[in-house]
């Protein structure tokens, strides 16, 4: 008898998002266990035998693979995923919250008339609604609990580091990998690419993966940001910051931490001169330890910190500078 399942779509850029895929598989496996469901991974990308074996070790019971090579067109992958979803009629479909996968999820949801919840921070099973999806909205000032109505399909996208605690190794599944054939009618019309230049300043992968982050807000002098950057780099850490600093052009966009920026999950997060606006705090909930430094003892950031230092950031950063020079 066909057992119901949860489908997890893999982001094909496994170099950048390989770990995110595992986070989602882990979460799906935990949800599946509650209702005795199977986890089916769908991967449309390059033929990577090692990675596919890893998928089967990180929570997937089944893996369906379509060899699309290096193609990254969202419409192509949408068609492949749609066929698999319509065939398998899953209880839930989970996508990584990457640019590509959100495009696929939105397209798929529109075509299927599915309920789609973006950037979920939690998914819970529910007797009445099957699943309840939580996400932040209104610059993270509220958390909304969302359910799907008038549909048999439930889809959600999830950003990196939200379920970083769910990454786990499982006994490898013995179910053979299902090969999905691309039907010959599939085209992949993409814009006529004229040129492409890699731009280091855009990448935020280092921030997403960083184990040590020094974050700066309005309460840090410009010259002090350079001192902190130089100091953290020596420990393999990364500097990030608040939306305000990005809006002012002091930090590039890829350094923004928060709801509209990156969700981080470092072992240590040190917030210098950051007041703690809810949309920023939303990005640091998974930091293992948070230390905050702010002149204002009533700064909201302190409520979300393990250690609070009421002080002027410059007074402390002076010592970082001394140590760097000495």
């Amino acid at each position, binding site marked *: 008898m066909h057992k119901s399942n949860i489908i997890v779509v893999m982001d094909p850029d496994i170099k*950048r998002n390989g770990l995110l895929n595992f986070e989602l598989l882990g979460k799906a496996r935990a949800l599946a266990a509650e209702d005795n469901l199977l986890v089916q991974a769908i991967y449309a990308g390059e033929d990577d035998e090692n990675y596919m074996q890893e998928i089967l070790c990180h929570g997937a019971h089944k893996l369906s693979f379509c060899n699309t090579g290096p193609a990254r067109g969202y419409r192509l992958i949408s068609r492949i995923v749609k066929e698999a979803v319509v065939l398998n009629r899953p209880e839930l479909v989970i996508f990584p919250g990457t*640019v590509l996968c*959100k*495009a696929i999820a939105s397209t798929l949801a*529109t*075509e299927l*008339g599915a*309920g*789609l919840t*973006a*950037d979920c921070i939690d998914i819970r099973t529910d007797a009445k*609604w099957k699943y*309840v999806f939580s996400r932040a*909205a*209104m*610059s*993270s*000032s*509220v*958390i*909304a*609990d*969302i*359910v*799907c*109505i008038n549909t048999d399909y439930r889809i959600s996208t999830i950003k990196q580091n939200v379920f970083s605690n769910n990454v786990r190794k499982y006994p490898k599944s013995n179910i053979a990998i299902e090969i999905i054939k691309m039907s010959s009618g599939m085209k992949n019309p993409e*814009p*006529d*690419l*004229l040129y*492409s*230049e*890699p*731009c280091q300043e*855009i990448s935020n*992968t280092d921030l997403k993966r960083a184990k*040590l982050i020094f974050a700066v807000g309005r309460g840090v002098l410009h010259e002090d940001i350079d001192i902190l950057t130089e100091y953290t780099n020596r420990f393999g*850490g990364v500097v990030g910051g608040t939306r305000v600093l990005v*809006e002012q052009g002091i930090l590039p966009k890829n350094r923004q931490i928060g*709801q*509209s920026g990156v969700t981080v999950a470092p*072992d240590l997060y*040190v917030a210098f001169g950051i007041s703690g606006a809810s949309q920023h705090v*939303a990005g640091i909930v998974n930091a293992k330890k*948070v*230390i905050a*430094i702010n002149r204002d003892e009533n700064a909201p950031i*302190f*409520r*979300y*910190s*393990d*250690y*609070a230092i*009421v*002080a002027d950031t410059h*007074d*402390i950063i002076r*010592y970082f500078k001394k*140590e760097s020079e000495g």
Partner: protein
Amino acid sequence: MKIAVCIKAVSKTLDERNTSEGSMYALNAYDSFSLLNILQSKADAVDISVTCICMGPPSAESVLRRCLAMGADDAVLLSDSRFSGADTFATSHVLAQAIRKMKFDVVIGGQKSVDGETGHVVYGIASRLELLCVSNVTSTKILDGRHLLVRYIDEDSIKSARVQVPVVLAFNDYNVSNTVSLLQLKQARGRRIGVLNADDLQIAENECGQAGSKTLVLRSTAQNMNSKRETEFIDSNARNHFIFLREKLKEIC
């Protein structure tokens, strides 16, 4: 070339800078950016018409009036009590239907809104119109009657591509400040803004608003209490604060 700009009216508490005097609503900053960008092409003397479309209550017309003041040629408000309670699925249906009826070459808009921040609607519109959506657009330039040059971000690269109409472009950047002159606002006050309802768009009641939605917000609660931590205040002088930080750093590295 006929260009449709999808506009969302958001609560003015989220963005005072993009709000006109006396209005309850602000122009979504991402949509504002896309509108300004396409108006730039217009300024470069290319034969284009820019129409702003917004699905919202009657009072959202103030946002469309702001768009006219910024330089848009036309504005249309899609308004009907039956549209209320719409999620992104129902919203993209209404917008796509209006766009279909008015026959546009290019559809642009902000990739997301500052309130919902889902990023679904542009793709929903593109899907329904069976068009390609190019996202993370930072700028665009009209090449000729059928082609645009689009600059967009794709992961870690900046790409430049030539696209053919019809197409959907989603801009993923926002204006921090967007000032409109008093004269422009005054001139916009007299302009006519078309209003279309569900019947005009031939949209059935179960296809729009809450009835046409696939998601429902069960509840909204203020920022999650669970992210609060047990805080220990370190009360000392700057030097000891530095030493404390350095110790913590060494612990994890």
